[in-house]
């Protein structure tokens, strides 16, 4: 009998190794999926308790403007658990910081990829990467020692508020948005640039009409990614926003975000009580929002592919 045909029919070592490797890596992935599922189930089960066990109405929770879970509203006999002030606070700091950060990120990214490639790679790139890695505690520390006193001196009041939070978040998400924008700009094919310049466009025309347009989906993704990070940031914002669970009336009055109320309150409440459950509901909202941000990024991504 032909030895080669024998060999081909027998299971080879490669097949065994591959089956082993596939199983091994599948196990690792399954493990992560299990962890994710566990955390989801955990947050959801606790977060939904507010509505199921404590019978708080969803609309009261989402649209109520008074947050004081330990006090019972004499009219409805339900505690004050209106989360709107924090939801508003979170959205305000997130959008404001994204709006401020976007032009800066695009400008810096253009500088690094189109205008001064060498200096960009040598100086800006390392700084930007370094800043991605700075712990949020340190950002909060700087916010507290520099930005809050500065705001107090310039606009008065206590210095704590949405504006201070916005500035801290702006600095925090800037590196993330910038480095992702740089990646996008780099992936615009060379011939786009060359053909634009070949027909006599100035560098700015090339950037504005060709590169930025081609990179729009990528830049949007970067911005949404930065927003997702801003939305979930806890410690740094908590240190500068003032943490007053009030509907924001101005940019310089103390306000609060979902995360700041969550981190401050979680140790002071008793597991299983309504006061604790509503905090988990806030965590659930954070989870759902990060789902929304991810879906947006995916939508932008798939639109970009179609082009």
């Amino acid at each position, binding site marked *: 009998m032909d030895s080669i045909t024998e060999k081909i029919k027998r299971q080879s070592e490669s097949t065994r190794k591959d089956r082993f490797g596939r199983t091994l890596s599948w196990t690792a992935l399954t493990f992560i999926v299990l962890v994710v599922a566990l955390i989801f189930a955990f947050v959801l089960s606790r977060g939904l308790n507010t509505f199921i066990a404590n019978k708080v109405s969803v609309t009261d929770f989402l649209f109520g403007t008074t947050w004081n879970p330990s006090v019972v509203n004499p009219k409805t006999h339900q505690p004050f658990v209106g989360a709107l002030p924090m939801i508003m606070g979170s959205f305000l700091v997130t959008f404001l910081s994204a709006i401020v950060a976007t032009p800066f990120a695009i400008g810096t990214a253009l500088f690094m990829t189109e205008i001064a490639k060498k200096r960009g790679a040598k100086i800006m790139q390392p700084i930007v990467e370094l800043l991605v890695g700075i712990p949020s505690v340190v950002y909060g520390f700087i916010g507290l020692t520099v930005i809050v006193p500065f705001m107090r001196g310039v606009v008065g009041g206590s*210095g704590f508020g949405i504006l201070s939070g916005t500035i801290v978040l702006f600095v925090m998400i800037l590196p993330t948005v910038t480095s992702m924008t740089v990646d996008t700009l780099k992936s615009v094919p060379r011939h786009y640039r060359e053909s634009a310049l070949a027909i006599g466009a100035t560098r700015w025309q090339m950037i504005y009409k060709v590169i930025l347009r081609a990179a729009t989906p990528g830049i949007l993704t970067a911005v949404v990614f930065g927003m997702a990070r801003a939305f979930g940031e806890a410690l740094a914002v908590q240190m500068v926003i003032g943490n007053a669970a009030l509907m924001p009336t101005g940019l310089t009055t103390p306000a609060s975000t979902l995360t700041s109320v969550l981190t401050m309150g979680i140790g002071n409440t008793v597991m299983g009580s309504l006061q604790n459950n509503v905090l988990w509901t806030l965590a659930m909202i954070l989870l759902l929002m990060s789902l929304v941000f991810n879906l947006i990024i995916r939508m932008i991504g798939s639109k970009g592919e179609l082009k």
Partner: protein
Amino acid sequence: MPKMHRGRTIFAGILVVLALLIGTAYLTRDKTSSSVSITAVGSTALQPLVEAAGEDYARDNAGVFVNVQGGGTGTGLSQVAQGAVDLGNSDLFAAEKKGIKAQDLVDHQVAVVGITPILNKGLNIHDLTSKQLQDIFTGKVTNWKELNGPDQEIVVINRAAGSGTRAAFEKWGLDGAKSLEAQEQDSSGMVRSIVSSTPGAISYVAFAYGNSSVTSPAINGVAAKDENVKNGTYPIWSYEHIYTKGKPNQAVQGFLDYLMSHQVQSKLVPKLGYISIHDMDIKRSMDGQITANS
């Protein structure tokens, strides 16, 4: 010898050496210390005291290890009630905390902490009545000039909702009234630095955190001082509690006894800014009934 197999041999070698090391480590482990571990969780205000006492205690009693964590009063009470930890540190009576089955827990009051309102120095106000304090924190007055102070808006800074200091302040300082919804800060140090730098600001901290950068006004003419707490004339103070679930076991009781000992109460407790439980002339029940301390 082919590369692959050399790599595998080295890998196996490392594994064997590692296993041997762990094995020897296990056999030579310190068996003399029967290693009792006492875990305390809860109030961040009480944490430094228990921690410092725990370190001293562990030094004197070989094999006992005191593990102290913060996490907040709520965490402390719920964990000790579940039996997850040995000691639950709390700024409040367990019965005052919603959602806790207080009847299972045994209270050990280890210290007293006085709480003082603090004002921005620029206000130059050194005296407040209980009524005024209540008006300020409930938002009835919003400008210092209504209290014969300068024309300056009142900036109220609260401690985090549910924190022990806030609960005690509202109970004994505001006569049970809830303070208005305002800016909240998690920590004493930060509260103090905000008050000292913000014109018109008022807040409250434990005595240990008051210093010359802020004013501690007298309440109804009684200064916020340790003596006045001890003799019962200054009203805003609270006990620091350590809760156990049921009767503590021998090791835990040993540590609790140590906490109540002269050594801790007269040296460590004042050093950390608390008032010794032994120095109190009076006793106060949860609902405010005052009796003489025997």
